[in-house]
């Protein structure tokens, strides 16, 4: 890959926090019951 530092077209930190908190809320509200590994 010629560009290991390619930038994304959105704010990665904000997206990561938003996705994490969304999943945390879905799990807390038992909408998602269990995630296995």
């Amino acid at each position: 890959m010629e560009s290991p530092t390619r930038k994304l077209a959105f704010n990665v930190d904000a997206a990561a926090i938003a996705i994490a908190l969304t999943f945390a809320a879905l799990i807390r509200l038992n909408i998602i019951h269990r995630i296995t590994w």
Partner: protein
Amino acid sequence: MSAQTIPFPTAARQPPRSKQLLALLPGTLLLFAIGLAGKALESLGIFLRAHHHYFPRIEYVLWAIILGLVISNVFSVPAIFRPGVATYELWLKLGIVLVAAKFVFADVLHIGGMSLVLVAIELALSLTVMTILGKIFRLPPKLTSLLAIGSSICGVTAIMAAQPAIDADEQDTTTAIAAILALGALALFTFPVIGHLLHMGQQPYGIWAGLAVDNTAEATVTGALYGDLAGRFAILAKTARSAFIGFVVLGYAIYWASQGQAARVERKALFLWQKFPKFILGFMALSILASLGFFSAGQLASLGNLSKWAFLPAFAGVGLRTQLRDLVTQGWRPILVGVLGEIFIALITLGMVLAVYHHGAAQ
């Protein structure tokens, strides 16, 4: 880590947002495919060994990296996948924020606080040594600055943050990034061996990896290769280290401005906030929620498992973006300065961690 709201590569007219997001799909699928293949190979190995067949005892983390390395270094990554491969950073940060649910906030403050002290010492020593090495090997001064910043704080992210601040040219920046990435790949394979040779516990090893390995991704992987717990502590120490990025870059920006070779920083508080890695706030928020009993034990386990799923494509991305040939194509002097500097940083951080844990200062 702070300024990712940057337009897609330099086209005169940007494609619509929907097209930009669509372009991420092939590479994102490739990341997940490699990660899942790594997990499948680990399961296959367990199955075959249980039935008395030989199969290498390799965990999914290493499989994902090996598969990524082979694809990018033997076959090269087709252009259609490249935008999506860059999303490895999103999965990495998502995994880091989620793994905070496994930390009690008091531990974050205690271990994170201890890490901050160690980071401060490491920063002072490594910046000094890298600067001296750069002078000895007659590297361009701004390349030396970039290598010092990259190796002392958080690798590529720190270099990218410093480039505009110190007005470094493209060639120096590319060289510094290539050197830091190549050296990070070496750490993946050497640190776990050293950890086992020294019989290090999961926590001290993880703290060491977080303090010594430059990039957040490589630090996370280097920790995870030693064990789940080591991976979590590597993230905690690395997060504490990343928090310094603004201060170090600001220091270099002020220095180069005083030399008349970079623009003055007028609003320093705003500069620090812009450079601050915001995902740390998400990490702390989730750790506080978990510590307040917001989640049941089963829900915490689910969040921990979700963080593992998020790390899976991130590990694949570490392999895919690593070009081992950069070890030879960037010229021997930056690589030699990098190698010597990294060995120094690894040794002083190892000494500090062993001293702290030997004296029982951290539990």
